[in-house]
C-alpha cells in the first residue's frame, strides 16, 4: 500500500510551470519529509497528492490506481490554515464527525476538551481548531496523511502534542505520512527520509 506520484507537473492556466517531472512515494508506516524553500510549490504538490487538484501532467496513484473521485479518500490533507478548513457556521462536534464517528482515545490523544465540542470555530484558537482537523483525518480509513505545514502557525506545546499523536498512529496501524515543511530541524526530528522539491526552471522571459 503506497501513494505514488509519477512525473507530476503543475501550472496555473498557461503560466510558468510550478514544478515538473516530480516523483515521490510514501509507503505504509513511514514518515517522509518534503523540504523546499517558500514558494517552490510544496502546498500545490500536497493538494495534488490529496486529490484536491489534478496534476497537469503525470499521475498520482494510490495502490497503483487513481485516487477515488467519490467516497472517502484514503489520502487526506491537513493544511496550514485550520480556520479555512472548517465551516464557520458549524459547531466543532459536527465538524469532527464529518468524516467518521471518532473514538474517544483519539480525542484524548489530541487533548481535545469535551467543552470545545459545542463551540463554533470562531470561539477557538487556531491550535485548538487544528487538533480537530487532525482528529477528523485520523479515521481508520485514512492510509496516507499529507501534513502541509500542519504545525507552522502553532505554539511549541501544541506542535509536540500533534506530532506525538501522528507518530503514535503511524506506529500503531501503519499510517503513512508526508510531512511538508520548510523547516529542516522539524523534518530531521520526525522523518525516516527526506525528499527535496525544487522549483521548476525560471519562467521563460
Amino acid at each position, binding site marked *: 500500500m503506497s501513494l505514488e506520484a509519477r512525473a507530476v507537473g503543475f501550472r496555473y492556466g498557461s503560466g510558468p510551470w510550478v514544478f515538473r517531472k516530480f516523483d515521490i512515494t510514501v509507503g505504509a508506516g513511514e514518515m517522509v519529509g518534503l523540504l523546499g524553500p517558500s514558494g517552490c510549490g510544496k502546498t500545490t504538490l500536497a493538494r495534488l497528492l490529496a486529490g*484536491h487538484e489534478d496534476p497537469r501532467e503525470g499521475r498520482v496513484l494510490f495502490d497503483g490506481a487513481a485516487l477515488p473521485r467519490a*467516497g472517502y479518500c484514503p489520502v487526506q490533507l491537513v493544511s496550514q490554515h485550520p480556520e479555512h*478548513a472548517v*465551516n464557520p*457556521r458549524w459547531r466543532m462536534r459536527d465538524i469532527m464527525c464529518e*468524516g467518521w464517528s471518532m473514538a474517544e482515545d483519539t480525542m484524548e490523544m489530541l487533548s481535545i476538551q469535551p467543552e470545545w465540542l459545542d463551540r463554533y470555530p470562531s470561539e477557538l484558537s487556531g491550535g485548538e481548531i487544528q487538533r480537530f482537523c487532525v482528529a*477528523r483525518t485520523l479515521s481508520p480509513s485514512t492510509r496516507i496523511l499529507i501534513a502541509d505545514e500542519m504545525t507552522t502557525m502553532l505554539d511549541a506545546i501544541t506542535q509536540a502534542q500533534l506530532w506525538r499523536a501522528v507518530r503514535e498512529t503511524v506506529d500503531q496501524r501503519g499510517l503513512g505520512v508526508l510531512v511538508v515543511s520548510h523547516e529542516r530541524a522539524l523534518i530531521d526530528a520526525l522523518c525516516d527520509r527526506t525528499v527535496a522539491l525544487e522549483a521548476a526552471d525560471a519562467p521563460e522571459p
Partner: protein
Amino acid sequence: MNGAAPQTHPSAGRVSCSRLALSGRQRTLLTAALAALALGVIVAAGVLLPDTRLATDLGARNQAPSLANPFGTDWLGRDMLTRTARGLTTSLALGMAAASVSALLALALGMAAATLGKAADAAVSWLIDLFLSVPHIVLLILISFAFGGGARGVIIGIVLTHWPALARIIRAEILALRGSEFVRVSRRLGRSNLHIATRHMFPHVFPQFLVGLILLFPHAILHEAAVTFLGFGLPPHEPAVGIILAEAMMHLSTGRWWLALFPGLALLAMVRAFDILGDNTRALLDPRTAHE
C-alpha cells in the same frame, strides 16, 4: 504610579452617559421591530376597518380630512383611510406572493448556475443579462398584458422580472463556496453533493436569500402599484393603491389634494418600512456587523 491617574478606560465615557443607551445590535433589533410593527398595523387596519366605511354616502362627498375621516372622503363619500388600508393590504398580499416566488426562482437558478456545470452557468447568466438589460417596468407591462392583466398577470410579471439581481448574488456566493477549502475537505471525506449543497452551501446563502426576499417586497409593491396606475394591472373594482392614485389624478386639478397625498404617503411609508426591515435584518445576520 500616580501619573497613570488621568488615563481612563476607553469605554468609561460611554458607560456613564446613560443607562438607556442601547447597543448597536439592540438598536438594530428595535428598528426592525418597529418596521415590522408598522407593516402589522397596515394589515390590521385593512382587515379590521368595517365595510360600512366603504359604502357610498353621497351626503359626505369630497370632504377634506377631519377627525371622522382622517384621510378625507372621495367623490362617492367613501372613507379614504379605509380605502387606502384595503389597497395597501391588497398590494402587500400581491407583493408577498410575487416576491416569494421570485426569490425562490432566484435561489433555484442561482444554485443551478453555480453547481450544474459550464453550460448551465452560461445559460442562466445569459438569461440574467437579458432580463437586466430591459427596463423592469416595460417588461412587467408586456408580461402582465400578455397574461391578461389582473392579479394573475401582475404576479407573473413581477415574478419573471425581479429574480435576476438576487440570482446573480446567490450564484456568486455559491461559486466562491465551491472553491472554499472546507467544501473540498468535505468532498474528500466522502460526502455527497447533496450533503454539501444542503449542509454547507444552503446555510451560507440563506441570509442573502432572506434579506433579498425582504428587499424584493418594496420593489414588487411599487411595481404592482405602477402597473395598476398605468392601467395594465388590477381591474378598477379591486381596492389597490395604484387604482386609488390613478382615480385621484382626475380630481387633483379640482383641489382635492387629499385623494392622492395620503394614499401616496402611505405607500411610500410601507415601502420604506420594508427597506428598513431588510437592511436591519442584513445587519443582524451578517457576521461582520452582528455584534456591533
